[in-house]
């Protein structure tokens, strides 16, 4: 740590001036380096990719879009993107639909066992998915849901419910209670009050939670790897991880790089637009619980 500077008396040029800019640069390089490298690899020709020493910034004739073209030509890559988006979007909607009402009840209404439910919800956020996969595999098989989007949508809804409940609950707790009381005076029932008064106010919170849910669902790997075997239904992370070349000797580095870029772009965009909300949601979910 660089906080040991003590006196301000040192005259002339001080290295300490550099500490902050250098640290900022390191943070940026650390965070973006691997993605940038992947992007550079994805637009280089195969010759440039395997050049030794490495080509960092390809010259004009070393640039190509072939790896991207190949992805769509040889694999149903649009389909993978659609699968990921569809599954993530649907489970996000379901998660909000089930999670928000539950969070409201846990924040406002007196129900017996509330503390128990909250503790349970908090603990299951810590469960790695590997603990669930054996039981879920049996369920999927028994319900004949293999190679069906439901085999992913239902687990994704569930694994995001705890976070949704915790985040939404902390938002509901911050809402002024007077509002709901006056709505009741105006003759709204609980449900009517929820839909007409509370829901519009929690829209920002719903967006926050929804983004987190979407990210987690988009990124999920182990269930998607296990419950889907048909090529047309695979999600992007699984499909990317299984990309292989036309021969043992040829590992398609460029194509894999292109796949990683395509798989990460939507998320980078999400982060760029919703940075604040993501931070809000994460801290609310982790700290307030």
């Amino acid at each position, binding site marked *: 740590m660089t906080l040991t500077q003590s006196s301000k008396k040192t005259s002339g040029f001080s290295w300490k001036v550099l500490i902050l800019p250098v640290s900022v640069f390191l943070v940026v390089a650390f965070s973006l380096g691997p993605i940038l490298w992947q992007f550079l690899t994805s637009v280089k020709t195969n010759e440039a990719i395997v050049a030794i020493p490495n080509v960092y910034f390809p010259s004009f004739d070393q640039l190509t879009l072939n790896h991207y073209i190949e992805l769509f030509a040889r694999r149903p890559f649009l389909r993978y993107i659609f699968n990921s988006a569809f599954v993530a979007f649907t489970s996000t909607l379901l998660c909000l639909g089930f999670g928000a009402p539950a969070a409201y009840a846990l924040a406002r209404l007196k129900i017996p066992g509330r503390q128990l439910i909250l503790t349970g919800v908090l603990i299951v956020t810590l469960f790695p998915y590997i603990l669930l996969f054996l039981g879920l595999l049996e369920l999927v098989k028994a319900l004949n849901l293999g*190679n069906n989007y439901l085999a992913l949508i239902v687990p994704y809804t569930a694994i995001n419910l705890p976070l949704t409940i915790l985040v939404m609950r902390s938002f509901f707790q911050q809402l002024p209670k007077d509002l709901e009381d006056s709505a009741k005076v105006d003759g709204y029932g609980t449900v009517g009050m929820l839909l007409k008064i509370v829901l519009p106010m929690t829209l920002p919170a719903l967006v926050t939670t929804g983004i987190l849910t979407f990210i987690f669902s988009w990124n999920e790997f182990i269930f998607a790897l296990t419950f889907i075997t048909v090529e047309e239904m695979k999600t992007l992370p699984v499909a990317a991880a299984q990309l292989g070349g036309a021969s043992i000797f040829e590992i398609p580095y460029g194509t894999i790089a292109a796949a990683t870029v395509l798989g990460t772009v939507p998320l980078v965009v999400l982060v760029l637009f919703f940075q604040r909300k993501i931070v809000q949601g994460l801290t609310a979910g982790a700290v307030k619980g």
Partner: protein
Amino acid sequence: MRSNGGFYLAVAAIALVLVLGIHNLAFSQRPVKVNVLMQALEAAQWQSIVEEFEEQNPDIDLHIVEGPNASNLVEDLYTSSFLLGDSPYDLVYMDIVWTPKFAAAGWLTDLSDRISDEELSEFIDGDVNGGRYNDKLYRIPFRSDAGMLYYRTDLLEAEGFEPPETVEDLNRISQALMENDRVEWGYVWQGKQYEGLSAMFVEILEGFGGFWIDPETQDVGLDAPEAIAAVDFLTNTLENGISPPGVTTYQEEEARRFFQNGKVAFMRNWPYVWTLANADDSPVAGKIAIKPMIHQAGHGSGACQGGWGLGMVNTTQHPEEAWRVIEFITSRASQKQFVLETGYVPSRRSLFTDPDIVAKYAHYPQLLEVQEKSVLRPPIAQYAQASDILQRYLSSALTDRLSPEEAMRKAAEETRRLLGR
């Protein structure tokens, strides 16, 4: 509350409609589609026999699904599609060691009634036996594979040695060649912790008269004196400097490059090496020969049986069409065409001495001699687990973390616990 329930219902209904709508893309085509999954590399090599088949059988569309190139990933894909109970495949193109697992899991159709003993007798015994589980036949062999000893004819002639029969021969000749600076090393093999280690060890074990697991009685022989002697032989090659220390990290390809660059006199490997080591750019081209594995005096050679064949998925909607594919692909004509095109090893005996094939690959008659000595890796349902246990402890013995006795005792104990004995 009413509107609330309605909301849930609507969400559920929308989800359901979307899911079903997208899932059920009807598939009804005129020719019957028969699906089989295999490594992308081999799928490309199958191209011409598939075309040939479809030409002769216009009512069947033989569809090859390209899988990853690592065979364990292909096994995983098959396994998960069977586990989910909705297999998109009609045939399984399988490695010999998958047979007991897939059969025990109840995923394959018994083919015993579809083929006569007479027809079966035309295939190499090891290939056929590797397709059996509990006296039923689940796999018809297509191409075969076996481990053997490669040696440098030029070096042996120069020093006046006969090709080695026993482990003592191998040690003696290696020492002599190294002392006279003919080669850097004597013997190279596959010592990395992976399936190839088990395959290689099966041969040494056979050569020392030991056994791994008896499939009938489920007895485990890994801690028997013969097995420990076999491990001793391997560790001694390292201690005596006959084998380079790197072999504990070698797979087939590392060993081949070592041998092909002329650094070693003997090598244990599979048939595929022959073509590569005799290629024009190979320093040892024309200076090599093959023979069955070395063994201890008083015992016989063992060649680990490998190879690929076709089985039928028991949930297939088209068993008759699937069987016609199996018959065609494993037929003499198809195998011959495939062998001539790719240089793989056939599973039918008569092809090893077929004039056209011998004209192209002169060593195939010798190869048959090796294939006839084949030994199976234990054809038990839990083979994958047993093999992983063996690999782990063999590797600790080879890298000196455990003594051979200790390693084999532990391996035997764990294997017995696995088999519930």
